[in-house]
């Protein structure tokens, strides 16, 4: 009267199998072949999680195995009656509603991780990266840029030295103990910060600016990137996105896995620009320079050029209007905050 299943019993010592009938009865699994009947308590068996179209694999004490045919999928229910419930994970993945709920949680987790988790993680990871390693990273980037595309600055030496001196003094006041180094190169109205504290200033920005205050404002913004270690954090974040993407779709297609990475690279640019702008405002105040100089520089830069692709000083996201708004708010606010 109890249900039976057809199975093959392998002794684990040879590939020859023996056809047996399997029955489950009150916590006991009974095996009947032509020659004999064996009984095992379910507790002493290792019964693998079974899949819809696959046989159920059971390891008997001593290493013999059973391959149970279960085309009607009735074995699981019989085992459950005998007190052997599948694990939570198995129950989740057998049930469409549960699996879809897991998908919703997964998407939520990914979204949270992307917006909040990853920046936090990047900050933590960056804080343990030795300054020496960061400096080396920056140096190798500048080396590559110098070899490929950058040209030496055409500024008169006196001018560049004056800027360097003024900036060094201001940086020492605003960010004491932060290693920062100014590099002059020929190029358009722009500046960018590298990991490890190198700031590259292009001649074009010095020429576009109407006053040294404006140049220092731009350098204050770049100093903000340095102080917050933005380029290293950005690097870690992009690595983080790549790691998650390869967890999700790894060993399938590097293109599919890399697409989120490109999106990630642009998403984080804005946050950091905003932070650097805020730093620049504080930097101007600390050094007794007019915050309005930032506003006038933004206005001039906006006239001169359109959108930039890399997160650098002149990038237009966040939009110049928004940036100028904040700077003007700050200059109305008056007294230094730090």
């Amino acid at each position: 009267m109890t249900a039976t299943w057809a199975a093959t019993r392998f002794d684990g010592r040879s590939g020859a199998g023996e056809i047996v009938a399997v029955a489950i009865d009150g916590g006991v699994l009974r095996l009947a072949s032509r020659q004999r009947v064996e009984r095992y308590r379910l507790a002493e068996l290792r019964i693998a999680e079974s899949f819809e179209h696959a046989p159920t694999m059971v390891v008997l004490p001593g290493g013999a195995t059973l391959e149970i045919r279960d085309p009607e999928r009735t074995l699981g229910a019989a085992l459950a009656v005998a007190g052997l419930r599948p694990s939570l994970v198995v129950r989740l993945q057998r049930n469409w509603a549960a699996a879809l709920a897991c998908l919703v949680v997964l998407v939520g987790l990914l979204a949270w991780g992307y917006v909040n988790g990853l920046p936090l993680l990047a900050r933590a990871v960056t804080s343990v990266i030795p300054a020496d390693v960061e400096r080396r990273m920056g140096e190798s980037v500048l080396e590559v840029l110098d070899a490929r595309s950058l040209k030496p600055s055409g500024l008169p030496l006196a001018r560049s030295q004056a800027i360097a001196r003024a900036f060094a003094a201001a940086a020492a006041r605003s960010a004491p103990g932060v290693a920062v180094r100014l590099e002059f190169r020929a190029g358009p109205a722009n500046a960018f910060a590298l990991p490890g504290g190198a700031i590259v200033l292009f001649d074009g920005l010095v020429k576009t600016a109407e006053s040294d205050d404006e140049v220092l404002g731009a350098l204050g913004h770049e100093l903000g990137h340095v102080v917050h270690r933005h380029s290293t954090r950005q690097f870690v974040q992009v690595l983080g996105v790549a790691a998650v993407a390869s967890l999700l779709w790894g060993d399938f297609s590097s293109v599919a896995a890399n697409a989120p990475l490109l999106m990630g690279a642009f998403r984080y640019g804005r946050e950091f620009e905003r932070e650097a702008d805020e730093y620049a405002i504080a930097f101007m105040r600390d050094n007794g320079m007019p915050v309005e100089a930032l506003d006038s520089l933004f206005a001039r830069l906006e006239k001169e050029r359109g959108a930039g692709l890399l997160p650098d000083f002149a990038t237009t996201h966040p939009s110049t209007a928004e940036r100028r708004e904040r700077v003007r708010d700050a200059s109305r606010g008056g007294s230094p905050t730090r």
Partner: protein
Amino acid sequence: MAAREDSRHGEGAGGGDDAGPDHGRWQPPAGERPRVRGAFDELEPGPLRDELAGAKSASQPLAAPDPAEPPARLARLQFTGEGAEYFRIWVVNTLLTLATLGVYSAWAKVRKTRYFWQNTRLEGYAFDFHGRPKAVLIGRVIALALLAGYSLAFEFSSRAGLAMIAVLCVVGPWLFARAQRFKLANTSWRGLRFGFSGGTAEAYRIALPPMAIWFSGTVAAVVADRRAALATLAGVVAVALVPWMHHRLKAWQHARATYGDRNFAFLPATAGFYRVYFVAGALLLGAGVGVALAGVVAFGALLGAVFGRGESAAAAGVGFLVSLALFLVAALAAWPYFAARLQAIVWSHTRAGDVRFATAIAPWPLGKLVAKNVLLTLATAGLYWPFASVALARYRIECMRAESDEPLVALAESTLRGTQDASGDAAADAFGVDIGL
């Protein structure tokens, strides 16, 4: 399907539908499905056909297997997995992996491997995988530590980098052998484990020369103080020897595989490897020229954008997308050719005693499948990925054939090696490293 499964479920009865009651030898090359049944049907009734059909009367329908039919000599692997089922497994696995910051990936890996093996059948019997998740986890930690060490060492100093290369050369071959052993010794069919008999000394003899050649460029660059010519020469030599290295490792993997007391063997195929690499390289190069052109445009525009001309940003974006699309096309053209032809060569040179293997996998159908998988996966933001995995596994697995002069049921007569224990290779249980070869 299930009912048929049951009716077939006797000792050695029935492989794939095409295998049927066939006495005729099926010959590689593996370009198309064997047409054994058709050939048999065309035989006129008479002594020859009676002989081929064995004891069975010629009037009986040939398609329906019956117990009296002679045992099969040709078998195809069957795959019974389904995308919808694997999708649910994948979702749960992925969620838990992410929620545990990757720790659960070891458990996920074991469940995934068991899903694909248990849904793979040969002669009506499923394969099984017995690897322990904790062993996989330990292996992943080791692999991650080595990878991180290697990628960071040169950031500290050249000496640290060279030391890391030395470490890799010392542990690499041993890890490679352990990975093979973990994979095979934890796989079973008919309750009997596969195994890997390659020893540690042999691992060093086989794997050390390729590793030394591979790292020679890096070492030359450091030791010769960045003298470009020497490093370039070493790099060129390394690239020219890639097919040789690949063949050397693959041959060892297959030649040292075991099933019970049965040893696998591998017939040398270095020339075949070179041919496949050469053609795939040419395909990639052809498409690569297009990619390079688009890339030059994109890079130029990117430089323009860096130096502040706004309209260049859009041009860079377009150029980048074009080169990405071209890269996809190039990869889609070259990869299926490479994968299909290489698989065909590897399996047609593999033996297990008198059992021969072959795969009917071919570049065009594989390419179509991969293109469909990539497009649907991109279009569904990755949700098609489990369906894609199942579809690819089904194609690859169902292309496989095993063939023998002796009835295949002789495989069942394989027995355990004298020194082995039925519960498997204890050493292989310690940890499992994924090495994707």
